[in-house]
């Protein structure tokens, strides 16, 4: 009897905590939508920002495109390096000293504040190497920031869904690159895309690392990776900081949130279809 009461108590606490998490997320989304609803329109999505102070009229189109380009480029660089690191840690250096050292370094890297990445990138890329403030510079910085996250996730995916197949395939005389190309990557692709997309979303929402490396207050859509760019989080930061237009700030926040959620759902759907469960995984 006593055990049953205790079980129910623990269950109730866990449900309560779960509801708080869901409730907070919903509250943020609804609050942002409610407060920003007056500015959200097709024009807001497709126009350039204008007004005095800047950003209190017009739209956020260049910032949307800039954020997407930054996310895509960071995912490409960080995702590729992270997956290769994960492969090395899981399949090539399991239990070795070099693997352990690399894993420790990556764990340390994951604990660095994002502003440090920005400062290091500024010193190295802009000050020492003479690169201008650009999309590429910011993407490299964001890649470095999301690299530990993607590496650790990729390692876990390969450990769980790849290692046994890898060893069994090796015992049949197959080469490592062949096994990785034909079995491991196809088998893990859905989850890898999920890991890279989560890293990308984390990077897309960051301001500190791009503050010194590429983002500007006003710029057209970048025509090359060497152009400076606008970004939604930075635009939001500027609007919120100045306090001139809360509605435009919250409208920008809503667009950013919606973008992140849509990307996450698309990646989730991709993973589901890769695993052959289609929409079922979303709703089960």
């Amino acid at each position, binding site marked *: 009897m006593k055990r049953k009461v205790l079980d129910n108590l623990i269950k109730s606490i866990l449900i309560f905590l779960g509801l708080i998490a869901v409730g907070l997320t919903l509250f943020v989304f609804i609050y942002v939508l409610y407060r920003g609803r007056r500015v959200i329109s097709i024009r807001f999505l497709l126009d350039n920002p204008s007004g005095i102070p800047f950003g209190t009229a017009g739209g956020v189109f260049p910032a949307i495109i800039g954020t997407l380009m930054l996310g895509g480029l960071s995912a490409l660089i960080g995702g590729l390096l992270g997956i290769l690191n994960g492969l090395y840690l899981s399949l090539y250096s*399991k*239990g*070795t000293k070099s693997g352990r050292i690399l894993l420790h370094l990556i764990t340390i890297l994951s604990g660095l504040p994002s502003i440090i990445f920005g400062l290091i990138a500024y010193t190295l890329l802009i000050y020492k190497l003479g690169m201008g403030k650009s999309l590429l510079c910011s993407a490299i910085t964001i890649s470095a920031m999301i690299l530990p996250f993607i590496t650790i996730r990729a390692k876990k995916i390969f450990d769980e*869904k790849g290692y*046994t*197949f890898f*060893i*069994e*395939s*090796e*015992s*049949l*005389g*197959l*080469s490592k690159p*062949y096994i990785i190309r*034909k*079995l491991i990557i196809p*088998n893990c692709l859905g989850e890898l895309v999920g890991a890279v997309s989560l890293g990308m979303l984390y990077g897309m929402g960051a301001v500190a690392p791009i503050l010194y490396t590429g983002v500007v207050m006003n710029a057209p859509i970048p025509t090359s990776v060497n152009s400076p760019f606008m970004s939604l989080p930075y635009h939001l930061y500027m609007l919120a900081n100045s306090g001139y237009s809360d509605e435009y700030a919250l409208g920008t926040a809503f667009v950013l949130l919606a973008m992140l959620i849509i990307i996450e759902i698309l990646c989730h759907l991709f993973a589901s279809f890769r695993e052959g469960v289609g929409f079922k995984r979303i709703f089960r």
Partner: protein
Amino acid sequence: MFIEIITYRVVGCSNIKIRKDGSLTVANIIVKNLNVFYGKKQVLKNIDTKINSGRITAIIGQSGCGKSTFLKSINRIVEEENGRINGHIYLDEEDILKEDSQILRRKIGLVFQQPEAFPMSIEKNLSYIMNYHFNYKKLELKERIKTYLQMVGLYGEVKEELSNPAKNLSGGQKQRLAIARCLCLNPEVLLLDEPCSALDLKNTLDIEKMLLELKKKYTIVLVTHNLSQAKRIADDVIFMSEGEIVEEGSSKDIFSQPKSRKMREYIEYMEG
């Protein structure tokens, strides 16, 4: 036996003897002063033995005595698990520790304890391996898939669902699929790590029947905890304890007149 050899075929950078039917020649395995280490821990100590061709050799012993490590050393998969092998293992006259590991594994197939079906269709589980090692045309590939599945007695059960995911197979079917995967290497030696450990009696007997059939073509080394199984199908037995070979000989002699105290105790313990 060697009369059947008609040609040499270049696989990778090594010449491998191939019979008329495509399978490789059956070979003896001679192990001399084999020591295996994982880090500083020595798992196998001074192993000296001969595994005869065309026979089933069962390796028995208590859990943790090094049976599986010994099996994995013969295939050198131990090295992929950061193990270190010292000594000599000869496949007939070639020291396999000096050979390219991929080519070696093509000759010595290993079936793991509770093997996984690769996350692909049943037929791709086999074509994935054959496409790497051989250049079969599509039709020949299909024919070979059928042959190997027939050899392990699986074709009749799955012929309508060859393109279905292999993960849906039962435990016994997965075990046989793993053996078929090994057979499609056309190996000389088949190493099986407790192939029936998770199977019921019917599946166990099916696999034993298949192994008795396969020993005509392959040297088979089998790790088992099941003494009855060893008695039923093994021609030779190696008894290991604490990383060493304690006793070896023909199955009949070992089980009827065990020489060592450890072996006698083990038999008594296993037979209750």
